[in-house]
């Protein structure tokens, strides 16, 4: 991934319809970069091909083997 910069921040905020106050720009950029590092980690995780659920909803009780622990 290309590291997010101020120009990208402007484009993303326009796309999202959110104004970034001038005094927040540096802080938002710093947090976005932390998130980008987190995103790199989740994409690096060796998930099996069928790991994606049809919808991004977390249902812990639907995981296999869960009830075996009662």
């Amino acid at each position, binding site marked *: 991934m290309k590291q997010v910069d101020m120009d990208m921040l402007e484009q993303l905020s326009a796309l999202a319809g959110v104004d970034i106050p001038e005094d927040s720009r540096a802080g938002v950029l710093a947090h976005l970069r*932390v998130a980008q590092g987190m995103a790199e980690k989740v994409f690096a995780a060796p998930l099996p091909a069928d790991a994606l659920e049809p919808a991004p909803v*977390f249902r812990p009780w639907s995981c296999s083997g869960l009830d075996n622990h009662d």
Partner: protein
Amino acid sequence: MTDANLPLAADIADAVRSGDISAAAIIADTLASIEALNPTLNCFTEVLAQRATERAAQLDARRAAGQDPGPLAGVPFAVKNLFDIAGVTTLAGSKINRDNPVATRDAVLVERLENAGAILVGALAMGEYAYDFTGENEHYGACRNPWDPARMSGGSSSGSGSATAAGLAPISLGSDTNGSIRVPSSLCGLFGLKPTYGRLPRTGSYPFCDSLDHLGPLARSSADLALAFDCLQGFDAGDPACAERPSLPTHERLDLGVDGLRCAVAGGYFDCTAFPEAQAAVAQVAAALGASRELELPGADAGRSAAYLVTNAEGAALHRERLRQRPQDFDADTRDRFLAGTLWPAGWYVRAQAVRRWWLEQMLAVFREVDIVIAPATPCCAPAVGTTTLNVRGELQALRPNLGLFTQPFSAVGLPVVSVPLWSESAGLPIGVQLVAAPWREDLCLRAARALETAGITLRATPPVSSAGS
């Protein structure tokens, strides 16, 4: 540290039930202690003197009439100010919510504790919109640690940690999205329970991140924690995430001991060689529970990252209109993090949800061989108020997110965890250790906590700022 012990919830309930003391006297003492200590600790945002006094009188009348006053008879409790309290505005630690109307009814968990005889004495401080691990709050000031008021209480259930440690509420309720019960429990020297995701209903509480929000109790003993947990359980249709499962009695199982329980230490991501206070605490617990095996848990780092992305994406979506309309009314750091969360690609969020499932499958495999996983709760004891950085394995990083470094991977997949308090000789402060079990097995976490308490491993002292000295 003093040797004087504050009364536990179980002791108070026994005394009130037997008629040795009235609930009215307990509440009067508690209100006086809150008035004396809150200026130092800043842990209460609302004190419900009239309501508590009336409820205490009603309870005493019921007992005098021969009715059962309940298992928590006369026990004062308080709740993080994201729980609805009838007649009070639910602040959720924010300035913005001050403009909201007052709640018209109590949160379900408040009702359940009161139905068990406990008496609500107030609403407690918290980090803004629960997005905090420090206990600092730009709008209401820092909540202080009773072990040293110059230090952080931890957050975001900061008031819960501070008030319960100081003896102002033997039981408190908090919320834990990424560690917000376990971090203040660690820093304030308490037992804290984050139950399995879906165990306790969140009906009538202000949300942060629906996929990860849990509610739970903090207390000064494992027995008080179990007593409260047993009273809190039960399905409620008002929370779509609440699982329809039978209640799990834990108090009656507390003394079953740990013989036969397979305990192991979390290594890899959870290695705390670089954090000597945490390392010493984990070693003590591991030795006491006979845990010689170390687990690598290779998915933990990605699991933590997933929690970070899910939390901020959902939290930012929740607050989007407030971020657009009133950005100046947020705590600056909360605002900047939420604003960042409005911007990132949906694909990050979807991948993070998939990683959570993958990481949970790894943990379920672990629990086929192990009953309790032992891990540090926080990397360090309570930092001084105002501290902004933490040395994370040689790299100076922001303190605020990293106090939850070790709690986040487990809440990411909804596992039940009890944080137990130990004493750090080197720091002269408390520090917590997490006991993690398979989904729905809170009883095992509590049993292990009880065994550590009985063996004298956990902290049972009274902090310098407490109702014992007020």
